[in-house]
């Protein structure tokens, strides 16, 4: 389907989120929409997919002026959006979710729908068991189901928002292959919003770049990463530096710990992290790396073994005692674990820094102003945290952490961030590392793991393998280890 | 002449209007009722409300105004003082506070309105001398109707086990339960021919006048417990109708059980076949005489404990307490009960017997074995009023 956007405008209060955006996507093309957080990508996609109306402007689909005001209307017009978190119903089965929202007619025939589900997934190479409850599916599978559902509803344009976040490398390959197949054979148009430039380069035919609500450039692919970065930021990014300014003594030691999770158990695991070290944790979701990371901050208690931070034995102590001993923790879900929706930025800063029983709001506000500048957070002290974009939220989270902890344990520190924001976060982290902080982080992004880690621990179903020199490894090897091929491990 | 005639008529009419209309207004006599429960509770409060209606019929020009459900739970926003103020503001010339729950407050409020007579039902503040000069007490001798009700239970029981569903424990509820016990024991022995010591009479106090889920015992459950543990008659001493309802349900499933509700004449209608009768109060006549006295300016405070009209305990115009026989009685039992009532009447009306309750005669011991009355001795009515424990022979708590 051919899509034309003509002079789209959208304002939120004083913010001009989309400023006169006009673009065309030809049928059968895969187009990436790039831009920093807050550039207006999400707004534009929401307008196109019916989640919110434009203030002015036209959407023309296959030379027909479209008018819809709801996501259902957009789907009827042929446009479906795949959310970052698929909006499915956990208690339902795959089949029930598939049928949900579709016109089943007066007589519902489960067999017919089951066949339909099977045939579409088979064509795209998806493996979906119709009778599995959604709760048992991985994010990648839920995404596949949503694609199948949208296709079954007759969608001819797919919008994907960060589709490769949280899915395995293998699932990513399947997804890309399916998208190419649909574009090539069905004339499906695909709009991809992603921060991962390597994905964009691998998949797309062209890119459009938004900055500050305006469309600032388009580029036909193939192109190099540098070209894309330059188009987005007008600059290229330097690789990180590695230095250590203190005596690298042991920061944290896990001695023979056993950690029980809901689905997986890590047994008799030992690990030592020295000051100035960056340790990456790799693995598919719930392979055990989450348990290790959270054990290091006292959020998971070992059923066996000891944990010591420096000289202090912290086995069995509470999270707050870990905090007091010098750990800092950043969870993957920023607004679920870390930031508090409904509180202002100043309130966050006050919460983290005030230790008098009376809050000095003047001082807190000044400190907030200062921190916002220091951490490059775009927002005002009195803004609610949920009004900030993801990158700004992550930077604020960083501002809330102590300046120089013994250990920083971070789950997916750059989740959902653009290249610029990710780079900035890592600069901050590496600065702290230089001054002696040990950093432990997990990431689904193999590039990130290989780029920043000194050592990597790979988890597969509770088994842990160590890559003792991350510089000696590459993405392919890491990918194999994550998939459980331990026999080729280079160290242990 | 015509003009003069017309003028005369007009002046005459005006004169009549000026004198008669105020006279009509003056003729109206407003009395106030404060109820502890709703006026349609099929129990205690409804009995008082109906007495008010009866007064309106009997005393022309009288008008009732009332306030229902005055208790901390239903009307937390107001107090007896506020309500009395409103009633007096609306013209009430005498106020009946119809619960012992109002006893203390009535005294305090009466002090604030020294010109208005207050009559507190079931209290004894006049008797004890605590009341101000404008407070009197009124109570019916429910002991008699409870004795009769007890007799009906004693006649009917086949298992020799009777359950009594009591509200909270105080002097009044103790003496009513004890009266029922004495009636049951007497009739079980003298009409039924049983050994009175074999008769089991169990009192379970649920904790309040009606079921408050989570606070009181559940009367439905307690009634079932009675029946399950061998009792075949349950007497109700509480304001609500669980006993008769459950008895009706169990009878419908083929069990041989009976119940006696309390307080509301029509309560048998719930399950007529298992109803042995209802002991009740009939406040109307006492209200009429009190209001008439206030109206005539002859009222003086007193402590009135009014008995039945022994010529016909169910005469609505004369008897303060009564007992309606229920369809659950056999003809024989009904006749026996009549003869028992006749015996009570001759006891009560015998001029040579001192003022006392029948069957309340020695030897009688309190539950802890203390002697209440030696053999042949009558219990003083005030000792009945202030009964400190239930009686020896009854099963249940005394406090």
């Amino acid at each position, binding site marked *: 389907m051919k899509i034309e956007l003509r002079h789209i405008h959208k304002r939120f209060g004083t913010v001009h989120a989309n400023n006169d955006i006009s673009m065309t996507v030809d049928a059968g093309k895969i187009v990436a929409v790039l831009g920093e957080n807050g550039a207006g990508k999400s707004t534009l996609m929401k307008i196109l997919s019916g989640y919110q109306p434009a203030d002015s402007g036209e959407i023309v689909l296959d030379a027909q002026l479209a008018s819809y005001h709801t996501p259902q209307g957009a789907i009827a017009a042929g446009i479906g959006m795949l959310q970052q978190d698929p909006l499915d119903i956990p208690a339902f089965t795959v089949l029930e979710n598939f049928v949900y929202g579709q016109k089943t007619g007066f007589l519902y025939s489960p067999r017919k729908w089951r066949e339909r589900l099977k045939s579409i997934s088979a064509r795209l190479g998806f493996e979906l068991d119709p009778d599995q409850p959604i709760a048992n599916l991985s994010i990648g599978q839920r995404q596949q189901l949503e694609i199948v559902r949208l296709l079954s509803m007759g969608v001819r344009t797919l919008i994907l928002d960060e589709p490769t976040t949280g899915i395995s490398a293998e699932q990513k390959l399947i997804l890309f292959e399916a998208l190419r197949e649909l574009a090539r054979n069905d004339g499906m148009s695909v709009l991809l919003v992603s921060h991962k430039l390597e994905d964009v380069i691998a998949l797309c035919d062209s890119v459009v770049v938004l900055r500050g609500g305006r469309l600032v450039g388009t580029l036909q692919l193939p192109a190099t990463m540098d070209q894309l970065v330059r188009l987005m930021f007008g600059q290229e990014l330097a690789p990180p530096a590695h230095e250590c300014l203190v005596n690298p003594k042991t920061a944290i030691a896990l001695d023979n710990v056993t950690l029980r999770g809901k689905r997986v158990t890590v047994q008799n695991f030992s690990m030592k992290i020295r000051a100035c070290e960056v340790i990456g944790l790799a693995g598919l979701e719930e392979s055990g790396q989450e348990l290790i990371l959270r054990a290091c901050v006292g959020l998971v208690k070992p059923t066996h073994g000891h944990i010591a931070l420096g000289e202090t034995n912290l086995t069995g102590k509470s999270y707050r005692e870990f905090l007091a001993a010098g750990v800092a923790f950043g969870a993957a879900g920023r607004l*679920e674990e870390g930031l508090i929706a409904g509180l202002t930025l100043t309130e966050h800063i006050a919460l983290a820094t005030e230790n008098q029983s009376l809050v000095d709001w003047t001082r807190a506000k000044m400190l907030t102003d200062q921190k916002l500048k220091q951490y490059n957070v775009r927002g005002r002290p009195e803004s609610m945290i949920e009004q900030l974009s993801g990158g700004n939220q992550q930077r604020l989270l960083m501002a809330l952490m102590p300046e120089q902890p013994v250990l920083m344990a971070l789950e997916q520190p750059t989740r959902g961030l653009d290249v610029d924001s990710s780079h900035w976060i890592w600069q901050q982290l590496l600065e702290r590392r230089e001054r002696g902080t040990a950093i432990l982080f997990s990431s689904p992004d193999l590039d990130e793991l290989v780029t920043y880690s000194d050592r990597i621990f790979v988890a597969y179903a509770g088994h842990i393998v160590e890559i003792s020199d991350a510089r000696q490894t590459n993405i392919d090897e890491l990918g194999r280890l994550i998939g459980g091929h331990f026999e080729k491990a280079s160290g242990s | 002449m015509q003009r003069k005639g017309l003028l005369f008529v007009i002046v005459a009419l005006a004169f009549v209007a000026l004198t008669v209309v105020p006279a009509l207004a003056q003729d109206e006599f407003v009395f106030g009722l404060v109820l502890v429960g709703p006026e349609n509770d099929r129990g205690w409060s409804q009995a008082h409300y109906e007495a008010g209606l009866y007064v309106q019929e009997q005393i022309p020009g009288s008008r009732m105004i009332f306030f229902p459900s005055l208790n901390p739970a239903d009307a937390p926003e107001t107090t007896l003082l506020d309500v009395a103020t409103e009633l007096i503001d609306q013209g009430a010339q005498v106020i009946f506070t119809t619960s012992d729950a109002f006893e203390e407050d009535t005294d305090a409020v009466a002090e604030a309105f020294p010109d208005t007579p207050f009559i507190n039902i079931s209290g004894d503040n006049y008797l004890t001398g605590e009341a101000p000069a404008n407070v009197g007490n009124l109570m019916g001798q429910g002991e008699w109707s409870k004795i009769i009700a007890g007799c009906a239970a004693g006649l009917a029981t086949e298992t020799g086990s009777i359950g009594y569903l009591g509200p909270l424990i105080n002097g009044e509820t103790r003496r009513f339960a004890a009266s029922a016990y004495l009636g049951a024991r007497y009739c079980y022995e003298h009409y039924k021919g049983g050994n009175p010591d074999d008769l089991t009479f169990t009192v379970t106090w649920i904790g309040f006048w009606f079921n408050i889920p989570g606070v009181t015992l559940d009367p439905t459950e307690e009634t079932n417990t009675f029946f399950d543990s061998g009792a075949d008659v349950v007497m109700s001493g509480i304001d609500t109708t669980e006993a008769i309802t459950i008895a009706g349900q169990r009878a419908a499933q083929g069990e041989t059980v009976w119940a006696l509700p309390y307080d509301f004449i029509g309560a048998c209608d719930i399950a007529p076949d298992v109803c042995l009768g209802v002991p009740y109060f009939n406040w109307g006549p006492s209200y009429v005489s009190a209001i008439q006295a206030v109206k005539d300016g002859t009222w003086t405070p007193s402590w009135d404990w009014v008995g039945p009209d022994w010529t016909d305990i169910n005469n609505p115009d004369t008897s303060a307490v009564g007992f309606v026989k229920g369809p659950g009685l056999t003809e024989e039992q009904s006749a026996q009960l009549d003869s028992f009532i006749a015996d009570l009447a001759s006891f009560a009306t015998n001029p040579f017997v001192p003022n006392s309750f029948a069957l309340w005669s020695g030897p009688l011991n309190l539950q802890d074995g203390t002697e209440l009355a030696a053999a042949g001795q009558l219990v003083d009515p005030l000792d009945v009023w202030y009964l400190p424990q239930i009686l020896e022979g009854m099963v249940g708590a005394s406090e």
Partner: protein
Amino acid sequence: MKNRTLLTVGFALLPIIASVAITALLIVAVGSNPGDVFVAVTEGAFRDSRAFAGVINFWIPLALCSLGLIVTFTAGLWNIGVEGQMMIGAVFAAYGALFIDLPGPVLILVEILLAMLGGGLWAALVGFLKTRLAVHEIFGGVALNALANVWAIYLISGPWAPPSGGTAQATAPFKDTAVLPAISPEFPVSLIALLLVTATLVIVSFALSGTRWGLQLKATGKNSRSALLLGVPTTRSAMSALIVCGMVAGIAGSYRVLFTYESLRPLVSGGIGFLALLVVLLVGLRPLFAVIVGFAFAVILAGSTRLKVALQLDQSLAGVLQGFIVLLVLLSNGLRQRFTSDSTSSETPNTTTTVEIQRTQEHG
């Protein structure tokens, strides 16, 4: 900006006007004159200083409970146990009034402190059940409410029954030195209680906006998981919020026995705690508003005493009016959010979060 203010005022008045209109229609439907009803309620509340005192006497415990509940709602807790906390406050105050012999002013101080102790302890039990035994505060609260009532009735009919001729409906009236003095016979309201309400209003407002404790409560209430990760002692926050609310509710309970009834009676809490829950749900976490709306409720309810007496209209009409106001206010809040896309979320009690307790850490 002006438009915005207009809109806010409009949305505040709309439900009140609408509910009055609907109630008026209902009154006409049952064959009465709405004007008479209005006059009766107004007269009932404002006729003279005594009538107005009736309003104030109902408002005092209602305002106190509302202020206490703002604290627990800030911490994300549904302290439905406020009713029982009032009751226990009443019981503890009654203990002081019945059994402690001290000069007047000291005795009153002791009674109020006892009431705070009792209410606080009862609330701490709710907190203990929640934080140690994972019993949700609603269930714990309901159970403890019932227990408080049972205990009070037991005391009244048993150990604390008046020495002779007890009716088991009340303890003996408290001695004169034990009850709160009235401002004057014409205006029977306790000055001490008025001062306590004012003090509570000031303290709660300040504690929530200007102290670290208040900030931590707010964080706990909005997202206790995040709060915990930011270093807030969430268990202690929840516990302290409950205890503070319990203490304030205890004062409210003591007022019922030390002034309104001058003796301990069953069910003296009278559902005032539940009404306070409603008030706070309506106005959100704004102490001053809660006190004002509480006053409006007191006017309607206390004024309606006259309704029943003067017009012999069912008193529950006031309840109907109140119900409509609540319903329509909630509706108009929803509408306002739609029209103004104004996120007032920070001011409405958080009704979804449950407080993260330290135990849950163990399964990360």
